[in-house]
């Protein structure tokens, strides 16, 4: 009898505070499984953001550090430069990375820091109660856009992966989704490649993961996955934007 799936050793026994059906849990599991498979759990230092995943330090079974809002890449830079032999990753949401932390993520890529970022994009601010994020889609309702986001008022949603792919120091940029088992397997593969880039010292790597927020989208967990497929994926196309071989 072989075990096909079980709780990863990269996660602690603490139960997460995430809402039912929140895909943060799936993404935590993928990162934990990758760290376990690469056998680097004991060498890893993660940096938790501000947002729903602010308590991620309680859930990952590796050393963790908390950063102020949006500054996880700056904190990770410090950790990696002092301890270059450690594996350092940041885990950030879209309110954290694409809004208040835009400067930090752009410059960490620009400097080519040898860290990995897991960017969870669910197109809304979750923890604070569903406000509009830079990644909120046109027409999508949020507490700060009750009639839906408009281009005139807020511009077009920000495509972070495409933007970072224009920066030479970002050697691995990929967008994945966690809506189906097939896409979850692809997401895990991308996260593994991103960590391998770091282990080989190639430069900055980022994986953007399209995620759901059933509570603030006002849908059931199952309907949110459908909404993600119908709305988020067409605007945020999945795929790889940059691989180490392409860097000149």
């Amino acid at each position, binding site marked *: *009898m*072989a*075990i*096909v*799936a*079980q*709780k*990863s050793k990269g*996660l602690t026994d603490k*139960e*997460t505070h*995430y*809402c*039912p*059906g*929140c*895909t*943060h*849990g*799936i993404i935590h*599991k993928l990162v934990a499984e990758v760290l376990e498979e690469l056998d680097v759990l004991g060498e890893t230092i993660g940096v938790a953001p501000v947002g729903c995943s602010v308590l991620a330090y309680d859930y990952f079974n590796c050393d963790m550090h908390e950063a102020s809002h949006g500054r996880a890449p700056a904190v990770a830079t410090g950790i990696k430069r002092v301890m270059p032999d450690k594996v350092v990753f940041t885990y950030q949401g879209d309110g954290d990375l694409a809004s208040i932390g835009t400067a930090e993520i752009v410059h960490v890529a620009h400097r080519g820091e040898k860290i990995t970022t897991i960017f969870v994009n669910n197109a809304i601010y979750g923890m604070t109660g569903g406000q509009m994020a830079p990644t909120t889609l046109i027409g999508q309702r949020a507490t700060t856009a009750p009639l839906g986001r408009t281009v005139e008022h807020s511009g077009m949603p920000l495509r972070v992966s495409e933007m970072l792919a224009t920066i030479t120091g970002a050697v691995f940029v990929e967008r994945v989704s966690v809506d*189906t*088992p097939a896409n*979850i*397997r692809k997401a895990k593969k991308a996260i593994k490649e991103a960590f391998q880039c770091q282990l080989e010292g190639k430069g900055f790597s980022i994986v953007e993961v399209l995620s759901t927020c*059933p509570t603030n989208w006002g849908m*059931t*967990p*199952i309907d949110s*996955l459908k909404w993600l497929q119908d709305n988020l994926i067409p605007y945020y196309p999945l795929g790889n934007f940059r691989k180490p071989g392409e860097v000149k």
Partner: protein
Amino acid sequence: MAKGKVTFNEDICKGCGLCTTNCPVKIVKMDTSKINIKGFHPAAVFEMDKCIGCGNCAIMCPDSVITVERF
């Protein structure tokens, strides 16, 4: 003849139902006859002999509730 065995850590299940969406043999369902310690209807498998041990339910579970074994 069952090819797989699924076990649920019922008390940490949040009843989201994501595990029920991708079962190829459609045997994972929410057990509405039960309420767990968190106050949710936990997920369960009702016809274990049909299980093929693919692990899709465990892959979809955000709370790592499910362990899947294959014979």
